[in-house]
């Protein structure tokens, strides 16, 4: 904007103009004047529109977030249980004790496994939906992904509780197929086993994979739909077998979609505390630790320090994903 001292560019200081004094006759009404003001000073309008949402998000959300992060630099007094407001890094040092490190490693490993499984399961679905499905089947695939995506989170967890329970459907199915011994063998394994599927890591893993799967399918499908058909044609014209075309043309072009999906599956698993507390062994995940430390234990500084872990991991993850060009596939 150029610096111009003509009165029209400084409407705030304008005295009310006499009727007809302005360029347009509309300027008589107050709303008309206001409208003209916004037309001359679009920045003012944008500013006015931005103030309410920026205030809400800035104060309610960012303010709370910073207040929380600040807490992580305080520590808790061992004897009184009160928060000691001396800035210190000792709370962060607590994260590195073996027990807490275990929680972090367990959560990250689970997130990585869930992401991997979601990528493997989602690829055929996305591939068929993008390349082969037409008409009615396209709708079936669309609803097949959207309904689970949007149906209630708790109801989905509940459905899996029904599936995985000791007397539930999965055990019944295994028995009907006369392969109940396979399930028993699996549950007898160390670490991943347990007294039933609903109290084992296997159960936690299955539920996580189920619940976050649609978040992986959608970006992969979007990436596959954007693969230009003539590239595939060119590849086969040049003598590539379908397998080679898939390996050297389609897969590299779909990869950003997989990375974009993995952002969701990874981040969502990292922060969830409800699923592992309903289905799984009693060993803690990061989200549960945060919940317990701020609630029962009343150790807000440690809870705050634990929330920094997923933020940092996701920061690194996003930085890496950006280098792979995943954001264009969102």
């Amino acid at each position, binding site marked *: 904007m150029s610096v111009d001292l003509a009165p029209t560019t400084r409407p705030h200081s304008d005295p009310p103009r006499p009727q007809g004094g302005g360029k347009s006759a*509309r300027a008589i009404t107050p*709303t*008309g004047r*206001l*409208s*003209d003001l916004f*037309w001359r000073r*679009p*920045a003012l*309008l*944008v500013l006015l*529109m*931005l103030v309410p*949402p920026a205030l809400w*998000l*800035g104060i*309610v*959300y*960012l303010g709370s*977030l910073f*207040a929380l992060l600040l807490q992580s630099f305080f520590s808790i007094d061992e004897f009184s249980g009160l928060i000691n407001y001396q800035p210190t890094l000792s709370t962060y040092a607590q994260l590195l004790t073996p027990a807490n490190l275990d929680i972090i490693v367990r959560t990250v490993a689970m997130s990585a496994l869930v992401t991997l499984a979601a990528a493997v399961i989602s690829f*055929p*679905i996305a*591939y*068929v*939906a*993008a*390349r*082969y499905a037409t008409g009615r089947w396209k709708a*079936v695939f669309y609803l097949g992904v*959207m*309904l689970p995506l*949007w*149906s*209630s*989170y*708790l*109801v*989905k*967890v*509940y*459905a*899996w*509780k*029904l*599936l995985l*329970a000791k*007397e539930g459907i999965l055990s*019944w199915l295994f028995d009907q197929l006369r392969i109940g011994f396979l399930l028993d063998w699996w549950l007898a394994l160390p670490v991943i086993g347990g007294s039933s599927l609903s109290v084992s890591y296997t159960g936690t893993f299955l539920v996580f994979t*189920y619940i976050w*799967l649609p978040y992986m399918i959608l970006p992969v499908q979007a990436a596959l739909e954007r693969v230009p058909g003539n590239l595939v044609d060119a590849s086969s014209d040049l003598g590539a077998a379908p397998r080679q075309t898939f390996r050297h043309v389609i897969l590299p072009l779909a990869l950003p979609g997989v990375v974009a999906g993995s952002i969701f599956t990874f981040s*969502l698993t*990292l*922060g*969830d505390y409800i699923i592992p507390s309903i289905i799984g062994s009693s060993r803690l995940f990061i989200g549960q630790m*945060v919940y317990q430390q701020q609630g029962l234990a009343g150790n*807000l500084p440690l*809870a705050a320090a634990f929330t920094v872990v*997923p933020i940092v991991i*996701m920061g690194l993850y996003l930085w890496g994903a950006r280098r792979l060009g995943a954001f264009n596939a969102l």
Partner: protein
Amino acid sequence: MRSEGRAPLPLIIAAGAGLMFLLLPLLLIFVYAFTTEERSYVWPPPGLTLNWFAVTAQRPDVWRALLLSVQVAAVSTAIALVLGTLCAAAVSGTKFFGRETISLLVILPIALPGVITGISLRSAMSLFELPFSFWTIVLGHATFCIVVVYNNAVARFRRTSGSLVEASMDLGADGFQTFRYVILPNLGTALLAGGMLAFALSFDEVIVTTFTAGQQQTLPLWMLEELIRPHQRPVTNVVAIVVVLVTFVPILFAYSVTRRGEEIAGGGR
């Protein structure tokens, strides 16, 4: 990309199995609501009954939770509609310094894990000694609902051509008239869809709510309680169905509304 001919059989099997994996657990919920078995999750159900619907309908705690959930979702959606639309209009109308920051700020509440949003709101509330109330729940819900409205509105603003606004101005409408008669009707279905999704999101939210509700129970909190310490399984089964239906209806509606809107706009992409 579309290829001619049929998909290879193994691929079809893998995709079909994947779809079954996605859909069967949801169907299951509907079967369990009719089971006569009260104490365990035994499969197959020993018998079928409609009795539990009547039992659930007489539970005041369920009704209270349902009412609270609907109220919270309605108010949060209203706030999110106003703030999300304002934000989308500002961001898509112009280019200004910090524009990227604003869109990041809007997305952040759902990009970061819910437990972080929840605990930060909780600690801020205790810092300012804000007692838990209806409004503390709304505070959290509106914050993450803004992004849904914002996304829908931004997408529509992008498709609405600026020449419509210019034509309206040339024909003598002032800014407010243009907004009322040109921009708003154009935006209508996008806002309706965004509002529906926001409502569904809020109605279903549990993680942030556990931190901001105090002693109050929304329907998801009622269910969570029941999941951790089951003592009335048949009622839970029925509530699960109600929750599924209350979230599905707006979503299917939002889907059909946006699709129709795009057809009117000339097919779009």
